[in-house]
């Protein structure tokens, strides 16, 4: 696999940003887009545009077919059993909200328990908090240890007859911890508790097979998988999606509308009301092709190599502290530099063309647990090279120089 060839598919890397070559290390936030995806979007709007669904003119038929082709690709990409188990949403956040709202309406009553973890992104906490407010549910947090691993035994102990669902991330966007989802699903299913997985960080970087994981719901966003913004994916087991009530009402999600009653559409339309991000869903197919052409094994091998190189180099820099040391770590590296606030780090690195993120990364619970207000975070994508890591380390040295650190 030739990384330079892969990188050359991303037009942004041939541009100068602030007069500098871009070193993009904010992939946990969002990824850059390859030409195939950009061309597909462009071509659809230029030559093929139509809304999907009801119309029977040829443009509409073509658009509908392409839209459904993406659904099929997603199904194969994450190894779902049925195409109808793939629902398109606005983003992963909406996908989790969809489950929390509809599952909550049907299954959560006062005193019922929802288990999440201390690693969760706000988008896998706030939707459940709504159920705490509206349905008086209880949220329990499965704790992490010092390394940033979830303490599985503790999670196990939290499950009671009152537990209605477990919602957990597959890969932490701060510590890079890869969570043993299969093990958690087995534990929860033994007690008949369904599991929702937040797969935002995992789908772009590790193998995801929802049939093997046996999880009940799996949510992720297209834009982190080198795809367009505006598209989220919810995988849900058919038995759940058929049973749960609809979420957003409107056109396309109905099969029959009378004054006295409404019959809802079958899956997947039941959950796809109104005009969808048609062009973006169609272009997302190109991202999946891009990922499949590289192959997850190659991708994981490359990102592991770059991650290990980064960890090794960063550890050698005085006063740099890497947050978390999980058993299984992906290319997400949160760090602090003693004496320099993460926001100052991010601003100074940006001047050298190095794009990272600083803040709490939408994980205030985790930062509070670690006694940190903010961290800096470098996150790796398929196009990152050892040169990028060298540039990161050089920019950090510059940062230390400006702040006169020894």
């Amino acid at each position, binding site marked *: 696999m030739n990384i330079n060839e892969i990188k050359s598919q991303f037009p942004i890397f041939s541009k100068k940003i*602030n007069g500098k070559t871009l070193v993009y290390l904010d992939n946990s936030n969002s990824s850059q887009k390859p030409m195939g995806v950009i061309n597909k979007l462009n071509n659809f709007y230029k030559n093929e545009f139509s809304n999907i669904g009801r119309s029977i003119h040829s443009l509409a038929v073509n658009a509908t077919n392409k839209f459904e082709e993406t659904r099929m690709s997603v199904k194969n990409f994450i190894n779902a059993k049925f195409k109808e188990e793939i629902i398109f949403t606005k983003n992963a956040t909406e996908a989790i909200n969809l489950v929390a709202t509809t599952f909550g309406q049907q299954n959560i009553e006062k005193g019922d328990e929802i288990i999440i973890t201390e690693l969760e992104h706000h988008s896998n906490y706030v939707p459940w908090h709504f159920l705490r407010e509206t349905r008086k549910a209880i949220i329990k947090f499965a704790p992490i240890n010092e390394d940033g691993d979830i303490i599985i035994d503790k999670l196990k102990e939290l499950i009671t007859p009152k537990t209605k669902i477990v919602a957990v991330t597959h890969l932490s966007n701060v510590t890079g911890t890869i969570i043993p989802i299969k093990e958690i699903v087995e534990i929860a299913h033994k007690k008949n508790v369904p599991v929702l997985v937040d797969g935002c960080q995992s789908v772009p970087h590790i193998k995801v097979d929802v049939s093997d994981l046996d999880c009940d719901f799996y949510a992720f966003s297209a834009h982190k998988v080198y795809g367009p913004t505006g598209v989220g994916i919810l995988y849900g087991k058919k038995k759940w999606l058929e049973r749960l009530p609809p979420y957003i009402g409107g056109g396309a999600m109905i099969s029959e509308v009378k004054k006295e009653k409404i019959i809802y559409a079958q899956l997947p339309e039941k959950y796809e009301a109104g005009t969808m991000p048609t062009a973006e869903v169609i272009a997302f197919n190109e991202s999946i092709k891009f990922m499949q052409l590289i192959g997850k094994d190659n991708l994981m091998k490359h990102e592991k190599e770059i991650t290990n190189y980064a960890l090794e180099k960063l550890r050698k820099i005085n006063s740099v502290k890497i947050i978390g040391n999980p058993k299984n770590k992906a290319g997400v590296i949160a760090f602090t530099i003693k004496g320099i606030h993460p926001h100052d780090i991010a*601003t100074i690195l940006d001047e050298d063309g190095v794009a990272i993120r*600083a803040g709490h990364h939408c994980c205030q619970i985790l930062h509070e647990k670690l006694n940190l207000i903010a961290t800096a975070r470098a996150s790796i994508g398929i196009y990152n090279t050892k040169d990028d890591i060298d540039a990161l380390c050089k920019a950090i040295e510059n940062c230390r120089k400006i702040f006169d650190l020894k």
Partner: protein
Amino acid sequence: MDLKQLYQDIILEHGKSPRNLGICKDYSHEAKGYNPLCGDKVHVYLKLNSGKKVEGLTFEGDGCAISLASASIMTELVKGKSFDEAKEIMSAFLNMIKNTSELQSNHLDEDQKTKLMSLSGVKQFPMRVKCATLAWHTLVSAMEEKKEEVNTEVID
């Protein structure tokens, strides 16, 4: 954008060793400020005398070099000023950072102006403006005896 304009020596120095850090003895007013974007926090303690003059002004906080330096410089410049003078300096500061890059105040001498001008580089870094304004908004909140915490996402 020029980084040297943002991280001037005076800012780095104040950021590293902030003045008037701690709780002001016998303070009469206080307020808390919070920047939810980065988690920066500041707590301003103010002692106003009977003539509504700032007799003491200190702060506690955790934040970036820009926010600490801004708070530190603020405590130095506002001490000894009246309520109205402090508000005029604050508007002059905000105008400099958000609009003009120039500082027009009738209540600061040239040395004080130079000191405050060191923060004018922030204007070129829009994501960092709130770091510089947090302490100032919190000071006004303390003076006006507002109860709720200042939140940069709500006020700016």
